[in-house]
């Protein structure tokens, strides 16, 4: 065994920096990288996956499926972006788990069994979204999974589950069911929780704009496709309850004023996506509560610049914008940072940005419509029954939290100290929004006033051996040309 002396601290934080480091190689990160590299900046992109693509374009260029086109047009569109990204002068460090980003431009990540560090003058965080937790009775039981995880299994490993019940709302849910069916996997049922009123509210929101109608049609077409495949679709479902003691046995719910019960060994839940906050929260960026999307978001200016001026956030990690919106935001963030680095003029930045801002504006109209239509209902966000689990890592229920609250824990951070809710390995990803909303309800104040957990690095788990092995990554000479 190696015996290190305690004074043997690794050389750290010295040497060459990148112009721009980008975290996440999804549409936002890849587009930012292409834009920045084209202008001559030295760019590094860190992503935890073996291949570029992000959530939506996962494995688009090396799918384990024999007919990836069955996953749909939107999926294949990503191939072009991935190719442009791979051709650019960007340095892509894949299989890199970023676990610390400092306000001094320091980025630490685990890779190859060790910790590597690099520094960059500017940073773009494009870590994407995660699925909104769905805290209903029984959601913690083995056999329950999020629909997105089911999709990841499909895209990465070609793994599927027969006879699953899909539950929830949102375009992604329908898409995943359709993707399953196109591959010939039997689906037991789709239990759709979108309330009837949401359709009316959504139409009112956009006054029947053409774009929105086509969006609505896209969703209804998917629903139709699912029905025509012979899958029972239960609409306007409520009062969800997953049954089972040590594993899932089925689902109880109400639909069409009728109590129903389905037997199932696999239940896939989904009610939309929210920004994955662990990166931006741990970096100490300012956040605010967004009522339209019912989630916390980093507070940004129109270029995606955060409360720390050297850090921009782009894509679904900034608020849900979709793959196209993510791409546009990535480009805008890159343009602004190029200007800050002195590599393009403000005029050139503004000129290139103009069509991008217009595009974003257009996409935002869609987004308002989708947000309205697929707004997750209160009962599925704020658990009502005492024994519903809120924090899955530490197995804390509504009743446990209530007790902590009654003992005087008023905010998420106090409640964490008192009950351990949010202290587990997911770092609060699965319970943070629920806790903010629960406390707001109990205290009769707004979620914004309640706040969120204080998070800090590491934002990803790493082991002691990885932490103990330090090395430093610097720009390759060929990519530093423009930096000098």
């Amino acid at each position: 065994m190696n015996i290190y002396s305690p004074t043997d601290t690794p050389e750290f934080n010295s040497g060459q920096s990148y112009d721009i480091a980008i975290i996440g190689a999804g549409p936002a990160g890849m587009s930012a990288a292409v834009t920045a590299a084209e202008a001559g900046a030295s760019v590094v992109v860190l992503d935890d996956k073996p291949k570029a693509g992000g959530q939506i374009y996962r494995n688009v260029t090396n799918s384990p499926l024999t007919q990836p086109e069955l996953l749909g047009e939107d999926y294949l569109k990503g191939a072009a972006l991935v190719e442009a990204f791979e051709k650019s002068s960007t340095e892509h460090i894949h299989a890199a788990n970023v676990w610390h980003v400092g306000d001094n431009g320091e980025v630490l990540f685990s890779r190859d069994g060790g910790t590597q560090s690099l520094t960059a003058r500017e940073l773009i965080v494009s870590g994407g979204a995660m699925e909104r937790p769905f805290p209903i009775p029984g959601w913690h039981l083995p056999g329950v999974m999020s629909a997105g995880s089911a999709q990841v299994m499909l895209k990465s490993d070609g793994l599927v589950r027969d006879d699953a019940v899909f539950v929830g709302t949102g375009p992604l849910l329908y898409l995943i069911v359709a993707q399953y069916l196109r591959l010939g996997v039997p689906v037991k049922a789709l239990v759709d929780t979108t309330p009837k009123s949401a359709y009316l509210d959504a139409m009112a929101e956009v006054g029947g704009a053409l774009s929105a109608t086509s969006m609505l049609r896209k969703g209804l077409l998917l629903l139709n496709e699912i029905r025509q495949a012979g899958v029972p679709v239960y609409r306007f479902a409520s009062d969800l309850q997953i049954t089972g003691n040590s594993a899932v046995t089925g689902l109880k719910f109400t639909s069409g004023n009728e109590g129903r019960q389905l037997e199932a060994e696999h239940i896939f839940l989904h009610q939309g996506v929210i920004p994955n906050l662990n990166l931006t929260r741990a970096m100490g960026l300012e956040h605010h509560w967004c009522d339209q999307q019912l989630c916390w978001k980093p507070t940004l200016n129109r270029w995606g610049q955060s409360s720390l001026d050297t850090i921009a956030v782009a894509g679904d990690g900034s608020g849900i914008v979709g793959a196209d919106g993510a791409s546009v935001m990535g480009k805008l963030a890159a343009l602004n940072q190029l200007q800050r680095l002195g590599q393009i003029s403000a005029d050139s930045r503004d000129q290139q940005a103009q069509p991008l801002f217009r595009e974003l504006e257009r996409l935002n109209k869609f987004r308002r419509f989708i947000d309205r239509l697929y707004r997750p209902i209160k009962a599925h966000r704020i658990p009502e029954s005492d024994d519903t689990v809120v924090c899955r890592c530490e197995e804390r229920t509504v009743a446990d939290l209530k007790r902590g609250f009654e003992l005087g824990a008023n905010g998420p951070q106090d409640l964490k100290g008192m009950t351990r809710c949010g202290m587990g390995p997911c770092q609060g990803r699965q319970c943070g929004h629920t806790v903010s909303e629960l406390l707001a309800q109990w205290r009769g104040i707004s979620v914004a006033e309640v706040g969120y957990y204080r998070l800090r690095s590491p934002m990803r788990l790493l082991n002691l051996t990885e932490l103990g092995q330090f090395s430093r990554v610097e720009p390759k000479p060929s990519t530093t040309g423009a930096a000098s």
Partner: protein
Amino acid sequence: MKNANSDVLIIGGGIQGCSTAYNLARQGVSVTVLEKDWVSRHASGVNAGGVRVLGRDVAEVELSKASMELWHGLDDELDADTGFRARSLINIAADENDMETLRKREALMHGLDYHHEKMIDQQELRERLPHVAPHCVGGVVSEQDGYAIPYQSTLAFRRAAERFGAKFVEGVAAQRIRKIGQQWLVETNQGRFEAEHLVNCSGAWADQIAVKIGDNVPLTHSAPMLMITTRMPHFATPVVGAVSRPLSFKQFENGTVLIGGGAKGFADRENNRTRLDYAKMAVGARNAVEFFPIMATASVNRMWAGLEAYMPDNLPVIGGSVNADNAWHAFGFSAHGFQMGPIVGQVMAELITTGRSRFDLNKFRIDRFERKVL
């Protein structure tokens, strides 16, 4: 403007302030505690929870032993759950030099008639810690030590104090401090607070309060760092330290392992912030794995640091002001003050109500560093 009067005004809602408030309030003294952030926000809420007598400076042993006795009955006394667990604490000797250090310490302690620290050989070390690395040669054990949950413990004192009528005012910082006649007047962002006695329990900020009272003190502050792993299979019951290496850890009942060892990050007390020094964390990680190879694959779940006050001799200041009447200090615990909380509260209450203490507090005088000759 609020105008709040009480017999005693305590500045600082850490464990020392809360324990002092509790011990005063239960004797019927009216107490107000001012806390600029919230109770247990700083060192007292985020420390490693180590409750140890082992390895204390001889000046502290009497206080520390008395505090230890209190810890063993604290849940009952405060009618709360502090998370206290009695555990043996073992400091590991990595080589013969360490054993020599321990033998000298043993001679010193026996000379003072202290017998709570017991040396153990390699075989006994292995029996008590089956997963210890083979190169470790022995160690020293104290059977009466343990750990508690810092946030819960500090809060337990606060709640008990409140039951006896103590008032806690959070989010209010003491700013200007004056003495008019027999009254201390403390101006805050939310009005004035008055009291006959003023107690400085303001942790890493205590030098600022001391100066306003009239006492200079060579206090520094720093940010010791900690990390905790996800749950691991049970492998260590005793709390573990090392004689000459920066290593200390404890495995909790839920399997998580808290690793400390004294490595310090960067402290920014003006902004209530700390920054971690990851390169030093890396050294801590290597040390842990070197002593306990089983930890090689342990996952780090969280890392943090707290703001702590240090005196040049690593001993606290406990006692009266030398330049003002009815002003009292308890701060500068130099990274081992959590264990002292229960007894410090008693001592402060004694001092305030009777002017004296049953302990010899000479080593803790605030003016002990003042040069007698210029």
